[in-house]
């Protein structure tokens, strides 16, 4: 299986201005709020989970040509087809987000922390190396942070593991860490110095002792 994410942009050579936007300017087309609300409303149905959604989005071939709400819409259309909504036996929704449930559902959210079943392998301050392998499925370790040595800065507890959750293989909770890298480790000694430190939130399977 040849999985490729078109969304892994960190550090890439992307030109184009960053266009400022005033605080109240939320949408730029009348269909955009509908797409946002559809995605929110589909959450409780359990038709997909957040990691399946991200996988569906990042594998859109023309990802880079689309606006973000176009990406959301395209991915939702794709999932609706993939999950057999058009078939004879569409999967029943786990829950339908009725109008009167919206406020409570939004303010509750959906926690991703899980009771850990085993010890954290790494501790605050420890040096770790991220794995270099790019798996052929959805994952959350950015390309720019692969095979790099960093320091564990925070230990967040065990969280749902995207790599399995995105493939319907279960939540498989894993310890989650914030791992911080010096800019030189990521971009090389020749890189224009910025005095910066960059961290990613990395699940334990993404890490090895260094």
């Amino acid at each position: 299986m040849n999985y490729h994410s078109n969304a892994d942009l960190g550090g890439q050579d992307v030109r184009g201005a960053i266009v400022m936007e005033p605080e109240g300017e939320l949408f730029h087309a009348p269909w955009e709020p509908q797409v946002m609300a559809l995605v929110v409303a589909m959450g409780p149905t359990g038709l997909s989970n957040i990691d399946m959604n991200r996988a569906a989005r990042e594998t859109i071939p023309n990802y880079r040509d689309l606006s973000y709400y176009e990406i959301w819409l395209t991915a939702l259309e794709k999932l609706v087809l993939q999950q057999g909504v058009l078939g004879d036996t569409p999967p029943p929704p786990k829950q339908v987000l009725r109008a009167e449930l919206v406020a409570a559902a939004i303010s509750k959210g959906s926690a991703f922390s899980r009771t850990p079943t085993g010890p954290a392998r790494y501790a605050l301050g420890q040096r770790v190396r991220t794995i270099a392998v790019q798996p052929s499925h959805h994952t959350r370790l950015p390309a720019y942070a692969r095979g790099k040595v960093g320091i564990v800065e925070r230990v967040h507890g065990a969280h749902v593991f995207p790599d399995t959750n995105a493939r319907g293989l279960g939540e498989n909770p894993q310890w989650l860490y914030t791992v911080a890298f010096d800019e030189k480790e990521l971009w090389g000694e020749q890189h224009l110095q910025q005095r910066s430190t960059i961290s990613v939130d990395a699940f334990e399977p993404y890490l090895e002792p260094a």
Partner: protein
Amino acid sequence: MSEHEHDSQPHSHEHAQRALSPMELRVRALEALLTEKGYIDPAALDVVIDAYQTKIGPRNGARVVARAWCDAEFRRWLLADATAAIAFLGLTGRQGEHMVAVENTPQVHNLVVCTLCSCYPWAVLGLPPTWYKSAPYRARAVKDPRGVLREFGVELPESTQIRIWDSTAEVRYLVLPQRPAGSEDLSEEQLANLVTRDSMIGTGLPGTAA
């Protein structure tokens, strides 16, 4: 599903009273399908949109920041356990289930990005601005933070360390900006008015005490 062809028209930001655009037709078709199949309560969509247009936005985060500026104990709580401290202010919710607050100081400036998609602390900042989800910001924030900040009109002293948080999992980051000089006499509400959305992402600074 014939409406599912991609909208090949250039992006239009004006939508006057006219025939429905191809994108609008496509979204309506999907909404109709999901409603017919029993996944969606169409009335819920309006409630979701209203929530993010009128209730859940950066003014919520500004309340958190202003409280932290006024109440040293709350600030300490926010920095040690942001999820609980923010929940105490009633701001729990979707895309804010696991919060971390990071504090700007004269030595360190924090900047938040999601290079892999568009992870953003909705519960305190609402919907992300377009630039936050755009390729140029996501690509460059991790590699050329000073250049990015300059585009936002923020010029930091050379000696300031820049700390970039790439939100690659379900932890969401809120920047606690430095309290503006000369703001000693302002009320908490007045202080909240100085807190801009961008200052809580790290791409801006709070307003100055007039």
